[in-house]
């Protein structure tokens, strides 16, 4: 089952990149970024997953060599990563709005005053 | 600190800078080379030609002329640029050994050949900035061409220097020698580099580089007097112009003596033995051998000037700037590259 997760993570990352590269709409580019981010988040969670493990909530007295739990660090990382992803999305959407105001278009092929 | 010995050393170095091989030597020999060049070109064109001392007359005349600073010019840069360029050239001349004689014999070496490569840019940059500071459109075109000439010459010059460094390094078995006095010492012991197969293309390339670097005909697109009114110098008059003309002459000396140091370094070093063989010793012998070496150097510089500058001048027409660039990056670079590859594989 866990293999499915890895495949899905890989698929999501590639899908995100594909969207960024081929779609000529600014909003779709932002969506691509988000999809890529979700893919990585899925990857992180999957890496920390132990089949059959419990939630990693222990006090020191409960903790013994036989306690079996999923790795807590990737979960913490995922939370951070999700927050950062949300920030990036918010920021890029703000930029997209401003760009639409200035350029009057959402087409990336026309947002190219800086080139050469 | 201010002991007698210190004072003596200070005076000695001041003498080096001001008299030999510094300012005075550059002034006299440089202008002389320039005069010989003009005379030789005239003779090759079946003209009588100006007197050999003509560049001296030109220089002193320009000193006596009025200096006009155009209203659009930046006065400080306009006046300072020629002086900086000349001073930088004179200092480069201090680093080029005259066979056995070198200024910094007892001190760690100040500059190696890579540094000299970049020091040679300073006069070029100062003439460009001085010209640009006048605001003349001709200077703008001249600047563009001068810079392209520098770009064109730089690549083959780099290759020549690297191949010389590699050849000497190979022969000494320690990889590479960048030190100019090291290169000359090596030649003193093992014969001039021009005698090696791998160095012949490099020497040829260097011969072609000299007129390009000095901006002599046919590589003088930057100062074409008939099309762009002398380019960078269009607004210069009087003493600053004279100093530019002097710098140009000194550059001829610098480059030809650099050639001598790089490829013909073994020629003049036997002089001491010769002097000793006559039976002279002591300070007088040292002075005599130094004078002889300087004479040999000047002679070689004159020959080189005749070959690279005068002869090329007399038989060719001025190249357009894009032709010049192409020429240097194909023909001359090719020659230097052959040399580098030969040196790389140990020939």
């Amino acid at each position, binding site marked *: 089952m866990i293999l499915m997760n890895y495949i899905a993570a890989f698929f999501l990352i590639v899908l995100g990149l594909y969207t960024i590269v081929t779609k000529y709409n600014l909003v779709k580019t932002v969506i691509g970024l988000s999809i890529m981010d979700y893919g*990585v988040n899925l990857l992180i969670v999957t890496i920390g997953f132990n089949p059959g493990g419990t939630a990693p909530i222990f006090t020191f007295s409960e903790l013994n060599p036989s306690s079996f739990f999923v790795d807590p660090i990737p979960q913490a990382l995922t939370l951070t990563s999700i927050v950062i992803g949300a920030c990036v999305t918010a920021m890029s959407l703000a930029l997209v709005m401003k760009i639409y105001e200035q350029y009057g278009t959402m087409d990336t092929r026309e947002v190219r*005053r800086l080139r050469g | 600190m201010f002991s007698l010995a210190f004072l003596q050393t200070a005076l000695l170095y001041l003498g080096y800078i001001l008299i030999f091989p510094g300012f005075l030597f550059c002034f006299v020999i440089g202008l002389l080379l320039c005069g010989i060049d003009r005379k030789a070109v005239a003779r090759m064109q079946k003209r009588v030609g100006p007197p050999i001392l003509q560049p001296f007359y030109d220089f002193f005349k320009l000193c006596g002329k009025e200096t006009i600073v155009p209203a659009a010019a930046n006065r400080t840069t306009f006046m300072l640029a020629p002086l900086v360029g000349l001073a930088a050239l004179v200092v480069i001349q201090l680093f080029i050994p005259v066979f056995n004689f070198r200024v910094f014999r007892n001190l760690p070496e100040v500059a190696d050949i890579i540094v000299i490569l970049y020091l040679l840019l300073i006069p070029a940059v100062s003439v460009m900035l001085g010209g640009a500071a006048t605001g003349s459109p001709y200077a703008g075109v001249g600047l563009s061409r001068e810079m392209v000439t520098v770009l064109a010459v730089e690549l083959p010059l780099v290759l020549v220097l690297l191949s010389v460094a590699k050849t000497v390094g190979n022969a000494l078995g320690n990889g590479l020698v960048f030190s100019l006095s090291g290169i000359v010492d090596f030649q003193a012991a093992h014969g001039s580099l021009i005698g090696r197969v791998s160095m012949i293309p490099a020497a040829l390339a260097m011969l072609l580089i000299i007129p390009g670097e000095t901006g002599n005909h046919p590589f003088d697109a930057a100062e074409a007097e008939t099309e762009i009114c002398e380019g960078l110098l269009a607004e210069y008059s009087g003493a600053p112009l004279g100093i530019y003309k002097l710098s140009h002459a000194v550059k001829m000396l610098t480059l030809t003596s650099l050639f001598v140091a790089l490829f013909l370094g073994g020629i003049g070093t036997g002089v001491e033995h010769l002097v000793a063989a006559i039976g002279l010793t002591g300070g007088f012998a040292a002075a005599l051998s130094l004078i002889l070496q300087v004479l040999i150097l000047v002679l070689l510089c004159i020959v080189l000037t005749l070959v690279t500058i005068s002869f090329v001048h007399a038989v060719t027409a001025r190249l357009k700037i894009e032709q010049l660039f192409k020429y240097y990056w194909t023909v001359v670079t090719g020659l230097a590259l052959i040399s580098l590859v030969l040196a790389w594989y140990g020939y």
Partner: protein
Amino acid sequence: MMNVLSYQHFPIYAIMVLFLGAFLIVLFGKNKIARSCLALLSVTGSLALLVSLVPRVMLNGEIITYWMGNRAYAGGYAIGIALEVDALSLFFALLIAVAVFVSCVYSIRYMEHDDNIPQYYTLFLMLAGGVLGLVLSGDLFNMFIMVEILTFAAVALTAFRNTARGALEAAFKYLVVGSIGSTCILAGTIMLYAQVHTLNFAQLSALIPGHLNGSTRVAFALLFVGFSTKAFLVPFHPLAADAHGAAPASISVLISGVLTKSGIYGIIRLVYFLFQSMGLRPIQFMLVFVGSVSMFVCVTMALAQHDFKRLLAFHSISQIGYVLTAVGLSTALGISAGLYHAMNHTIFKGLLFLAAGAVLHETGTTDLDRLGGLSKRMPHTTVLFLIGAASISGIPPFNGFASKWLIYQAAYLRAVETGNIGYLLVTIIALVTSTLTLASFVKVSQSVFFGRLPEEFKDVKEVPFGMRFAMSLFAILCVLTGLLPDLVTKLLSGPAAQAVLNPIRYIAAARGIEMPVENAALPQAAGAWSPINWLLLLGIALFAITLVALLGKYDQVSENASGEKLPAKYDLFFSGEKSVYSQVGGGDLFWGFKHNWRHYFSFMHDLHSGVVNDYALWAVVALALAIAFLQIVL
């Protein structure tokens, strides 16, 4: 319990001071004086804290390991969050602190006419804190977080003047490709974590070389590409050009002097610490190849530019190419030269961007085809600019030459040592690139500071003292680091290079083990260059010539004294016509060069299409190539 004032705390204080300043400015930033004082205080504090660490870390070779909340290394695993400051970290931290300090001093006058200045300072300090956190962090995930913070702040600051031409566009492109890079870093981090279950840098460095498999190779490629986006190496260079062109000059200083350095820092840590690939041929090849391509492509791109800041931006990447090439040589001399050049790059590029900012501040444009002749109106800026230009073009005796010279030596020595003709090619590219750099700065001098003054800029004034002061600081550093190469090598770049050569000490320090400093003597360069002596000689020669000239009445010139109607005598020679405004446009200079390279230039122009999809595609291709290359050769 450690004393709160003990030096072990200094690194975290240095970071905190900046973030605290950012926070306080949000609260109290309405008042102009308060926000300037706060910003200056925090950057000065940060700089002072870092400088006070120099004797310990640089000279004594101490490595400061600091565990947040005192959760030290225990039971074979580093669980806590660590800051680990060795000579390499401190070297980059110092660069950053200095650049941030000068940029902050400059901002006070430079930004005074903008709106939303409190937000500017907040983002500015966040950016600074982010980069400082990145280089001082001893933890791979925290490096990622800091990368995100700095990318975020940099994007926001790029778009800060959102009415400026292309600012939003540049910010968006930067955000997209930068996010791809950040995601790469995150994915690489987590893949390494999956292999060895730790995020602590020292521990990773100890474990990864034993766990080299397909997965870690992919992680290597991901991290390499991620840090490359931060350093804007080819193929990410168009982003740098766009971002620099649009951002305020003080931010360009940070983007070029600080952000790119964080990328280089990441690459050094990745290559020489995490994977300990010192002396591995394929990795050297990769670094030197990317470095040389960046060096050459960006310098030619810069030659074709018409905009002052955009031109500087391309040069910035070109110089970063030098740094990466030198570092990639994997020799002590190469790494030390590369780090030295990284430092010099921060200084002279900072100076140049500030000069560009000064021009923009006074004239309102950076278009090379519209400017000209400003040297008469802004003499101080001109002199400062010329110092910067001479430095970056490698004109002796300024600092750019000192470090580039070491790089040439290192590359050629490497070529001779290995007998590899590729390194020879690199040496030649490096030497030629330097001349091309000179060409484009001659172009800038001609088009902006010299040449003819256009009518519309007749009344331009010199910039305020605060800005000139900031530029002078950089200019003084340019001269000093150029004249004292031995001191710089001994004090700064040498120890940092030693740290790179001895990753074992870094690993041991995290476990609390002090290893003795092995001061392997840095190899001497093959040639000779003593700038002080040269300057002395030049000084005497110049003095003598000037004296002679003055005795010969060199200074008696005819000048246009009246200043009213221009007499023909002082007019420019215009083939007899009354001179009109005429300037050879920046783009038309060097025609002879461009004509011969016209196919290359038109190809490059078409390639840099400005469409964000293309740039993203380049990133994907670079990633794919890096993964493929590392899978095959490592």
